[in-house]
């Protein structure tokens, strides 16, 4: 069964500083990896995905993520955080065998301090 670990409950960062949100995964075969963001009382918004190809994936709003197969990680990054980036971030994984269900981590609350 696939699973995701997001080890930190909350990430605090000063505005303008780099932001990193950590994610490790477990899945059979090759992973399909996703990052979503959730604002209060809203659904999940897609940020980026890794299916195959370059290990560095670029997504919406200046976010990027680096896939590391040996460390089974898919950390989300942004070079310069904005106050508006304050939200709940979820990492998710599915396998490549046609099992279309997503397994989510528990989420990381990101707080960007002005």
């Amino acid at each position: 069964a696939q699973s995701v670990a997001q080890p930190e409950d909350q990430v605090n960062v000063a505005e303008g500083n780099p932001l990193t949100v950590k994610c490790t995964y477990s899945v059979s075969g090759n992973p399909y990896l996703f990052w979503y963001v959730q604002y209060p009382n809203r659904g999940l918004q897609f940020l980026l995905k890794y299916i195959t190809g370059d290990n560095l994936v670029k997504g919406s709003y200046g976010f990027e993520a680096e896939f590391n197969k040996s460390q089974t990680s898919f950390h989300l990054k942004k070079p310069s955080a904005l106050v508006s980036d304050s939200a709940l971030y979820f990492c998710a994984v599915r396998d490549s065998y046609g099992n279309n269900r997503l397994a989510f981590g528990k989420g990381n609350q990101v707080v960007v301090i002005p």
Partner: protein
Amino acid sequence: DAGVTQSPTHLIKTRGQQVTLRCSPKSGHDTVSWYQQALGQGPQFIFQYYEEEERQRGNFPDRFSGHQFPNYSSELNVNALLLGDSALYLCASSLLLAKNIQYFGAGTRLSVL
């Protein structure tokens, strides 16, 4: 182009009652998945519908059932509600036969009293 729409946005029920939640997928999508997000947790997969059939199911009891209609819209039904069923219920749509993104609706907040 409308995204995934869910109704109602909020719902209050009492224990033992039954509830029906509705979802219209993004235009062009043929697959609907339902997730339960308890407070402070990540979404948990309930089940997935494709071609009007349940294709996959997560670890949820039979009190949770669903349906998909010919226009790809879907319903989630929960019978004999428990206090622990209080959560945000999210619907996601996608194309089954593609390595595709699941797009989520805003969810239905269910409170069971």
